[in-house]
Structures are given as C-alpha cells and as structure tokens.
C-alpha cells in the first residue's frame, strides 16, 4: 500500500470521528478511584473492619496511615498521567514520589530514638507484620489491573518500566488505604517498614511487569 493511500484512509476516517479532548489525569484518577473502591471492598470483605477504629489512638493512626497512602497515591497519579503520554517520561522526577516514604521513615526514626532499644523490636514488628506483608500486595492486584487497563486504553507510554512502576505505586498506595481499615498496629515504625515496604514491593513488581503489560 502506498503511504499516500494510507493517509487518505486515515484522513477520511478522521472526518467522521473528531477527537475528544484528553484529560489524562482525570481518566487515570478515575481508574485509581475505582481500584481504591475495589481494594476497600476486598479488605472489608476478607479481613473485616477493625473494632473500635473510631476512637482515640486507633483513629489517630488511621488518619496517619490514610494520609501517607493518599500522599503516595496522589503523587503516583500525577506522574502516571505524564508518563502515560509519549515522551512524558522526560517530565517526571521520580524522586518527589519517594518524598512521603522519606518523611515517614524520618518520623519512624525519631519515634524509635525516644525509646529504649528493647522496645524497638515490638515497635517495628507489631502484632501482625506478616498479615500486612501478605495483604497489601494481594489486595493491590485489583487496583493494579484496573489502572493497567486504563493506561493501555487511554495512554501510550514510551517508558514502560517507569509507567509500570507508577501503576504499581498507585496500586500499592490504594491497597494500603484499604488495609488500614483492618490494621491493628498503631506505631509509626510499623507503618514505615510494612506499609512503605509493601508499597515499594508493588512498585518493583509494576516495573517488572510494565514492559509486558503496557506494550502497544
């Protein structure tokens, strides 16, 4: 086929199908919100709501966990919307996406510094570190699938590793959001290690899967 013929074909199909305006952030944000609803539903259905969540220390720590997860998720959406466009990877500073992790790690360090070394182990491993380690990545599968679908449909990333990593980051953050409604552990070091660690794990998994799942 001659290229001029192809241009004729494409040009004539354009006349009947004017392009709609883009709004990448809105579309991907919506996908993350749908994924968040899925993660929340899954966490509540499988793990259940923590009793006495709405009072005193549990409520304070719920707010802390939610703020951390929301900050990570918000940055992930912001950068994902850029990376989802061709060439968008040049407009992304992934260091900023690590900022919430740095802040929480610093808070954890400060919290540990105020107490005797004998308490450190209990502060870090909490009641249910294993449950947290397993739950967050598993719950993240749902938002990961939704956001991957959205990036494939609306985007055209040219740096698939970075795009995958940001999909994983968003999925992990949203999953942590859901898990926090069940989580029994109320220490800053626990959140830093197990929330931060599992979200980082999701990011890594996304970076590995990106080149396969996001190709176009």
């Amino acid at each position: 086929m001659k290229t001029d013929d192809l241009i004729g074909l494409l040009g004539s199909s354009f006349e009947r199908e004017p392009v709609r305006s883009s709004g990448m952030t809105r579309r991907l944000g919506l996908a993350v919100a749908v994924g968040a609803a899925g993660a929340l539903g899954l966490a509540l259905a499988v793990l259940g709501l923590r009793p006495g969540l709405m009072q005193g220390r549990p409520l304070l720590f719920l707010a802390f966990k939610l703020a951390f997860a929301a900050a990570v998720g918000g940055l992930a959406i912001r950068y994902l919307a850029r990376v989802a466009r061709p060439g968008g990877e040049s407009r992304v500073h992934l260091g900023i996406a690590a900022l919430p992790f740095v802040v929480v790690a610093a808070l954890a360090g400060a919290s540990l510094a105020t107490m005797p070394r004998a308490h450190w182990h209990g502060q870090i491993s909490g009641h249910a570190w294993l449950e947290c380690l397993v739950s967050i990545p598993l719950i993240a599968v749902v938002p990961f699938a939704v956001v991957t679908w959205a990036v494939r449909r609306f985007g055209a990333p040219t740096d698939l590793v970075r795009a995958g990593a940001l999909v994983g980051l968003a999925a992990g953050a949203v999953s942590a959001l859901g898990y926090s409604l069940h989580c029994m552990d109320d220490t800053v070091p626990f959140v830093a290690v197990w929330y931060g660690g599992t979200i980082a794990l999701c990011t890594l998994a996304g970076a590995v899967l990106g080149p396969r799942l996001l190709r176009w």
Partner: protein
Amino acid sequence: MGTDARAFVLPLGGRESARDEPARDEAVRGESARLAAVSPAERELRGLLLASLAGSAVDYRRFLERLGSHLRAYYKGKLVRSGRADTEAEDLVQETLMVIHTRRHTYDVTQPVTPWIHAIARYKLIDHLRHTRSAAANVPVEDAGVLLVQGDHVAAESSLDVERLLALLPLKMRNAIRSTKVDGLSTAEAAARAGMSETAIKVSVHRGLKALAKRVGGTVR
C-alpha cells in the same frame, strides 16, 4: 500557514512568561520547549495538528502528509545500514502514522509536538529493531530535534499490501472500501455498483477502516 503559526506561538509565549519562578528544572524544560517551538518543523506540525484537533479535516490530511515525510527521513536515516531500508522505513512510517492517528488524544496541547512525535517514532523503531535485530536496539534518546525534512516524497511501496489487509474484512466492508478508496468511485457510484444505499456504503467504509486501523495499528479507542 501564517495564521496557523500565529495561533500556536501565542499560547507558548504565555507559558513562557507564566514560568518566571526560579525553579531550575522548570527553566530547563521551558528552554527546550522554546527551542522546539522555533524549529520550523515544530511550527508547521503544531499549527496543523492544533487546527485538525479543532476539527479541520483538511489540515489533518496535510498534517499527516507532512508528518509522513518527516518520519520517512527519520526512519531512512536510522535504517540506512539495513539492506532494505526503503521498504522497512516505509512500513515504519505507515505503522507510526496509524499509531499517531489512533493515539492522537495522548497529545498534550500545552506541549510542543515534535518531542511527542519523536517519542512515538523512537518507540516504534525500537520495537521494530527488537523484532528484527535484537542486538541493534540502541537508539540515542537525545536527538529529538533531528526530525529533518528532506525532499524525498517518493511514493515508495511498503510491504503492507492493501489487498492482504482487505482480505481480513467481511465482504461488505471490503467491497465498500475497495470501490471508494482503491478504485476511486464516489459514494453514489459505489452504492449503485453494490446495490446498496449510500448510507450503507458510508457505514461500511467507516467500520471497515476502523477494523483495519485496529489490525495494523494496535488498539483503537
């Protein structure tokens, strides 16, 4: 073209003055946007694309034609050592045109257009090299400005054969597209030949083209 050029210079100028804050990264990015904006290729393609996104089919056709020759120069340059550079380049030109057509909504109208095109062209080139010569996939990222125009608008035949593509379609769509797009009949003539209404021909052509674009260019939205 004069009005087009003015139409796009204004928003870019506004962006420049809006980013006076002393953030170094922003300044660097603004600088590269400004450089891209003054290149003639950027000026022409951006003007045409913005006009087409606003609904001008004539400008869109022109955009694709200009884009085709830029892409041809780019791919020929990259594939010059390959034995069949002309055909391979033409395949890639067509594939990239398809992809730019189906993914044109990924263009951010506040940004310069040549980096967007270059990113897509480079992505498709790497994809192609990975499939053909896995060892040769090192394409420098930094030459975004090298989408040069050369007066080589030769109608090189690509190996994407129109008949082979048409064979993928149902009979009705195939005949409608062959009559109107390959044999060059008008819609009325094609309708008379097929014994269908004009509307039915238009619908068949539209659906057929969509299906074709999907076959060749990956997902269509």
